[in-house]
């Protein structure tokens, strides 16, 4: 059964000032699947994922051409509000970044800024999101403690809960495990398998085993170009391009 396309990227180019960081990228991201983007450091995979929720808008001197269609609507159209877009396309970052406030307030942050004031409603969303991020059992009795007191892995799952609380359709993960130990990493990888039932997931990772374990589709980036994109099994067992094969067999990276 073929899955619907959630995001279609067409001829995407990006420049930081004069330096071109992304070149003519085309890609489709399937709904309710995990799409992994791999490649050596500096290949543009993080820059690419940040185009999908227009986080690059926050950086001075970035120029983007091409289209990113979310449900067939270009998110770079003039009538699209990046603030509203980021509500639909959430993001979890490389280093856990909970705000210096309580666990509850961290998760309630998104719903609150989007206008939910009702206390019982907020409590319901916070619980649901923490359950969704597999963190509820560990923190349900101390929602009012400072989020910075949690371990790194817990903080990252809190950030996932915080993202889920906004009820996004797509969740972007930008190397979410690079600051975590193997056990915390394992928990987040397991979580992704749950999350993809409800959300479309894109993950950037420099860890090829991780891409192989969690993703349904994999794209290989090199020097700002999406060199190869296919079902994860095909990429790892039968890469078409020599560079892809060299990278996944560890001949460079």
């Amino acid at each position, binding site marked *: 059964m073929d899955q619907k396309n959630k995001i279609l990227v067409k001829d995407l180019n990006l420049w930081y000032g004069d330096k071109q960081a992304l070149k003519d990228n085309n890609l489709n991201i399937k709904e309710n699947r995990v799409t992994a983007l791999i490649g050596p450091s500096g290949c543009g995979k993080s820059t690419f994922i940040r185009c999908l*929720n227009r*986080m690059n808008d*926050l950086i*001075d001197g970035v120029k983007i051409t091409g289209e990113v269609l979310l449900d067939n609507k270009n998110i770079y159209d003039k009538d699209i509000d990046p*603030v*509203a*877009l*980021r*509500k639909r396309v*959430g*993001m979890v*970052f490389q*280093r856990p*970044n*909970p*705000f*210096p*406030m309580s666990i509850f307030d961290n998760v309630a*942050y*998104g719903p*609150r*800024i*989007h206008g939910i004031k009702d206390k019982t409603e907020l409590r319901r969303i916070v619980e649901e999101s923490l359950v969704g991020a597999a963190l509820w059992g560990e923190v349900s009795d101390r929602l009012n403690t400072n989020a910075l007191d949690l371990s790194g892995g817990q903080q990252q799952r809190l*950030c996932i809960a*915080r*993202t889920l609380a*906004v009820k996004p359709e797509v969740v972007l993960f930008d190397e979410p495990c690079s600051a975590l130990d193997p056990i915390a990493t394992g928990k987040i990888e397991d979580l992704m398998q749950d999350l993809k039932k409800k959300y479309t997931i894109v993950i950037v990772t420099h860890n090829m085993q991780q891409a192989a374990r969690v993703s349904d589709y994999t794209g290989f980036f090199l020097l700002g170009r999406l060199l190869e994109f296919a079902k994860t099994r095909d990429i790892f067992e039968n890469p078409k391009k020599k560079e892809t094969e060299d990278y996944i067999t560890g001949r460079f990276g």
Partner: protein
Amino acid sequence: MGRFEPEKMVGRVLMLFSITAVVVLLLIMLFIFNAGLPLFTKVGVLDFLFGTRWVPSKDVYGAFQFIVAAFMVTFGALLIAVPLGLSCAIFLSEIAPRWAKNIVRPAIELLAGIPSIIYGVFALVIIVNAAHITFNLATGETILAASIILSIMVLPIIISISQDAIEAVPRLYREGSYAMGATDWQTIHRVLLPAASQGIVAGVILGMGRAIGETMAVVLVIGNVEKFPTGFLVPGETLTSAILLEMGEAVVNSLHYRALFCLGIVPFVFVLVLSVLSSRLISRNHERFE
């Protein structure tokens, strides 16, 4: 025979110089306490702090009206400078395009470099007259006029320390907030300001210290009447302006002389406490972001 070790020498010389600064501070403290405190063998501490009559010819030294005027001037200045300074800090750190930053930031630094007598003369001509006309007063030389000019003088401190505090909030926090669909303003007031709050408070405290110690600009515009200040639209006299005006006529080591030193001890101790407080807050602000 020890070898000559330039590294160690440099370290020692630098340490000697920094110790000098501490020694000077201690000497100043010793001097003013030594000059002032003998007052209390003749005048009660409470009579000094809470008495409202100041008559040197009769050796009556009640400093309450000076203390109250000094605090009124200081808090009046902060009431104006904190909202202005904080807005300016937010603008500079979060909103201003680079060209605007390049104009505003140096202008503010320049503001900090203007000698206080210049502020005083400016205030005497402009602010005092404006107060005189606006409020239809017998004289514009009021506590309000002093508050206004002080507020301008403490702005640079409040702005630069608050701006540093806001800019020290890690980019990760900003991105986390924006990634959830927060607007600029939501990010500023829900994430950045709370995260920077300790640094901002430290800036306000330092501004407070500057305001309470300021003398020249204040003495020119406050009217210098030794009466208990009943509001912001009346003249008054602060601790420091009383010292400035009377020190010339006080006989060395007389009771009057000692009383003037005691007037100096009040803001001195206050500023000391404030700077300890603010340096603690600033360092804690930095610790929070590792």
